[in-house]
């Protein structure tokens, strides 16, 4: 049977009544030992009989057409089996949640590095060498590679909003800032490169891949190949990081599938690191004009965010730059605009916290600038502008602990010791400064199904095609089921990442834990009802703990209630009207202390604190890791991360981890994370909200605000590399 819930009303807090006491505990990941000892088998690590290796061939033009692929130039090379270029090839990965094939066709080239063919050989090295040697003729067309000068610019309706009169409000206000910030292209650069192994059994395809949202990926792969989704099975039990780059089916999966079918043997296609940079989703660069005006009390009267982002022709995705700005602060006169420049660059898509990750870098620095202009503490300015109702739609907010996060963070960090005047603290060559920023990330729930089986031996199994991309899904689902069924966590197994299992929401948009957790919760509710019936009490009276059921003066070991065999229930959660009736988001506050070198402009982060509230915390340890990881990316966004494009042909210049600078251990100080206790009844039946993208949202702005406080240099062009800081430092 199925226990179904549509989220049309706030839900009671059943999980505050359960007895096991494991939910929320900082438990280890059950699959952790497998991962750290190399026994968790990732997509590319499967060794199938008679498997061949394919290597994608990259286009070396920015725009045009493939006229001829000279297969003969490589066919005679050792080990080479085939050179395949097929009209079903993908130009770029599918956007997250597309559920259908992206733009297809290998002949039209839209960006430098686009996969145009796959060379298959007996070994990876042979395939790579042949791919590198393949001669390709192109008809080159003139490309638009610079978003600032692109000839085609769209203005999507959903990204335009005018409310009141922002120009008049700016003119009238005693305090106003009108500033432009830019953020660069970033890459997800997951540790595990994108990889697929395709294996056909008749007309049925099994794909071992590294993907985030299997329900959609299955549909995308089937659609790309022109086959029924019933004939596609995708396995992704372990994913070595995704950050959005594995949301949609990608060129390597389709190439492997076509090659495997053509050759009649399994084919593996692994992207080299350089191809991950060139061929998977990038985070769009942004140029953002922020306008803020405040009255004498520091209350916003105007708020504007107008941005330009970019993407390939034909892609509907555009970076939702202002996503959090809409709901975060008040201000009657508002203006939002977006321009999408159509450029011949790698496809832009969702990268961890699309919208907030870049939009808040600009907004939260501009708020810092306004605080200074208004002579207000940056925290006070923010607290004065927390709106009662959504400033555009007028709807109410669900649980929102922003003010409490700001206050708790200030207390823990020692914010009162900060001098509002920049450049006041020096230790040798180093100038020390403190900065803060708000964290906010819109909360989303996604349709989810899960199946829970309770066995007579006191063990349970939870199954869904949900993925764990390093986020802790295995741990969280296990804990949730253990809590609901009154079992120690070790008695529960989570089985994930297989499209033969009930379809989950996938990992994306921070909805995974709440959505799949809610589905598992609902399944457990169904089982609890069955157990109550067996025991002879009501479901409300039922108490489950350590394998024993009690209720209505009755008590029984679970085994006694399962004499008919295992109990099986599916949970099915569907988002409902609470998504529209409540403005839902996770909130927090970031604090950073930096040291800026007065000689060189180098910045080192000395400590960071994040205080967050995201509804019920399901596992304090994995939640903390998510927030820390996001804050580390905040350091990268603030200081180092930038995809560089050649100004002439737009190709990505820094295509490896030596030159694309993610923070390394020495860049990352002790990061403190604290959670405030919160329940969000409007979010989902387990009262949790998204957390995976909260940590990055605003984090970089706290660092850059701290740089200003340290040395008085306001960098408005992310990342704040030393040359930009240096330009504002006094002569030595």
């Amino acid at each position, binding site marked *: 049977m199925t226990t179904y819930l549509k989220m049309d009303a706030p839900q009671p807090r059943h999980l505050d009544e359960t007895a096991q006491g494991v939910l929320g505990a900082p438990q280890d990941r059950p699959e952790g030992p497998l991962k750290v000892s190399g026994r968790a088998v990732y997509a590319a690590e499967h060794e199938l009989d008679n498997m061949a290796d394919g290597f994608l061939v990259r286009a070396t033009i920015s725009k045009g057409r493939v006229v001829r692929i000279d297969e003969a130039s490589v066919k005679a090379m050792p080990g080479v089996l085939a050179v395949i270029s097929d009209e079903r090839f993908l130009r770029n990965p599918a956007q997250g949640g597309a559920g259908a094939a992206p733009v297809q066709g290998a002949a039209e080239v839209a960006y430098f590095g686009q996969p145009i063919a796959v060379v298959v050989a007996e070994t990876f090295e042979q395939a790579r060498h042949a791919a*590198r040697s393949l001669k390709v003729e192109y008809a080159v067309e003139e490309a638009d590679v610079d978003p600032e000068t692109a000839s085609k610019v769209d203005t999507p309706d959903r990204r335009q909003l005018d409310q009141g009169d922002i120009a008049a409000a700016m003119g009238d206000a005693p305090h106003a800032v009108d500033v432009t910030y830019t953020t660069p292209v970033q890459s997800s650069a997951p540790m595990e490169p994108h990889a697929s192994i395709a294996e056909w059994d008749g007309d049925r395809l099994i794909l071992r891949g590294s993907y985030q949202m299997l329900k959609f990926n299955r549909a995308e792969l089937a659609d790309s190949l022109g086959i029924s989704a019933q004939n596609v099975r995708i396995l992704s039990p372990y994913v070595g990081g995704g950050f959005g780059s594995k949301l949609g089916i990608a060129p390597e999966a389709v190439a492997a599938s076509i090659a495997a079918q053509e050759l009649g043997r399994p084919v593996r296609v692994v992207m080299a690191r350089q191809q991950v940079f060139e061929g998977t989703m990038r985070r769009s660069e942004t140029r953002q004009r922020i306008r803020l005006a405040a009255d004498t009390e520091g209350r916003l009267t105007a708020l504007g965010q107008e941005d330009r982002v970019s993407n390939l022709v034909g892609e509907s995705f555009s970076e939702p730059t202002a996503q959090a700005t809409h709901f975060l602060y008040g201000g009657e006169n508002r203006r939002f605009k977006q321009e999408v420049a159509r450029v011949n660059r790698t496809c832009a898509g969702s990268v961890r916290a699309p919208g907030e990750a870049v939009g808040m870098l600009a907004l939260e620095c501009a708020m810092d600038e306004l605080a200074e202009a208004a002579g207000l503490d940056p925290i006070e300015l923010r607290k004065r502008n927390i709106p009662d109702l959504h400033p555009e739609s007028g709807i109410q907010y669900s649980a929102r602990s922003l003010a409490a996060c700001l206050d708790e963070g200030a207390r823990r960090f020692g914010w009162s010791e900060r001098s509002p005047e920049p450049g006041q603290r020096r230790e040798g060559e180093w100038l020390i400064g403190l900065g803060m920023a708000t964290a906010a990330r819109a909360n989303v729930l996604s349709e989810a199904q899960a199946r829970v089986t309770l066995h007579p031996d006191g063990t349970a199994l939870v199954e869904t095609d949900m993925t764990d991309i390093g986020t802790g899904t295995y741990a969280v689902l296990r804990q949730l089921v253990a809590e609901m069924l009154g079992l120690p966590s070790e008695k529960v197994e989570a089985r994930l990442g297989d499209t033969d299992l009930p379809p989950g929401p996938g990992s994306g948009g921070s909805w995974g834990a709440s959505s799949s957790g809610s589905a598992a919760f609902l399944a457990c509710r169904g089982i609890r009802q069955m157990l109550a019936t067996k025991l002879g009490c009501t479901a409300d009276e039922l108490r489950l703990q350590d394998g024993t059921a009690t209720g209505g003066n009755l008590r029984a070991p679970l085994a006694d209630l399962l004499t008919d065999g295992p109990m099986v229930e599916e949970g099915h959660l569907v988002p409902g009207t609470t998504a529209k009736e409540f403005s839902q988001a996770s909130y927090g506050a970031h604090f950073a202390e930096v040291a800026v070198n007065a000689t060189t402009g180098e910045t080192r982060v000395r400590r960071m604190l994040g205080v967050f509230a995201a509804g019920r915390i399901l596992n304090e340890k994995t939640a903390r890791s998510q927030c820390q990881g996001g804050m580390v990316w905040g350091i990268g966004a603030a200081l180092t991360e930038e995809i560089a494009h050649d*100004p002439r042909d737009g190709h990505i210049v820094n295509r490896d981890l*030596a030159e694309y*600078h993610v*923070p390394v251990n020495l860049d990352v100080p002790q990061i403190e994370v604290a959670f405030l206790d919160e329940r969000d009844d409007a979010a989902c039946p387990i009262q949790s909200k998204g957390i995976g993208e909260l940590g990055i949202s605003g984090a970089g702005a706290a660092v850059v605000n701290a740089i200003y406080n340290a040395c008085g240099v306001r960098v408005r062009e992310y990342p704040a590399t030393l*040359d930009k800081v240096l330009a504002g430092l006094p002569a*030595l």
Partner: protein
Amino acid sequence: MRPFDYIRADAPATATKEAGAGARYIAGGTNLLDLMKLEVMTPERLVDITRLDLRDVERTPEGGLKIGALVTNSDLAAHPDVRRDYPVLSRALLSGATGQLRNKATAGGNLLQRTRCYYFYDPAQPCNKRDPGSGCGAIGGFNRIHAILGASEHCIATHPSDMAVAMRALDAEIEVEGADGAGRRIPIADLHRLPSDTPQDETTLAPGDLITAVILPPPAKNTFQAYRKVRDRASYAFALVSVACVLRMDGDRIGGVALAFGGLAHKPWRDPEVEATLTGESPSDDLFDKAADTLLREAQGQGGNDFKIPLARRTLKAVLREATQTEAAA
């Protein structure tokens, strides 16, 4: 990766005999293997020299140090004699790469690192160093990490080594065994070349030449030694500017100074005129500015790397202030 022959040498003489044209020696392989995977380097033959007996660090009769070519960067940085007598070298080594890489990388190989120029690394881009005559993609391209001194219209790449910069300041000599079996010593100043119109020729070594050791002269007494590396992140990033400094005070004057720079040129950069400007003078900010003026008199930015000019000046001044314990002018 292109197929290649692999030969393991058991003595320097067999190594040089096996290493003809188209061959490369391999030791740590921390740079060569990456470049082979990308087919930026496509040797037909690899001569593995890791079994050679070149792993010792020993005192020379003159009181200097002879560093076997296969001594790893980690071992060299940690060697007590190096730490005591040549701290600039130890610090330069430890500022480079990562612990894992330093455990594999060798002294000889480090000297022969290839540039990190993005265009060199991408076979689809023009690069006179990788593909002579194809042009220089970095000129007019993205050139944040490129040279401001000694570059040419054919190549603006920089040498990426930290170790070599310190060795340049220490006046090291490179011991080489030629294909004919004859040994010779090359001053490090003469090992690396400027790009000129043949950027593919990065050193003065002949095909088959095998670096067997690096010789450091006897340590200078009572010197201040420092290696200051400025980079885009705290670790695992190549120098934007680095300064190796060995300075001796003579009373309140600078008695002698050696300054070598990384990140500025196609080779570890040393300019005798800079040192002449400083030697015998009383340290002051004015003097340091004069030294920086001299260093940068022909500096030329390429757009993306213009910041290296003020950065080199500031870094040099800070190092000299520290070396001479000079307070900043008010």
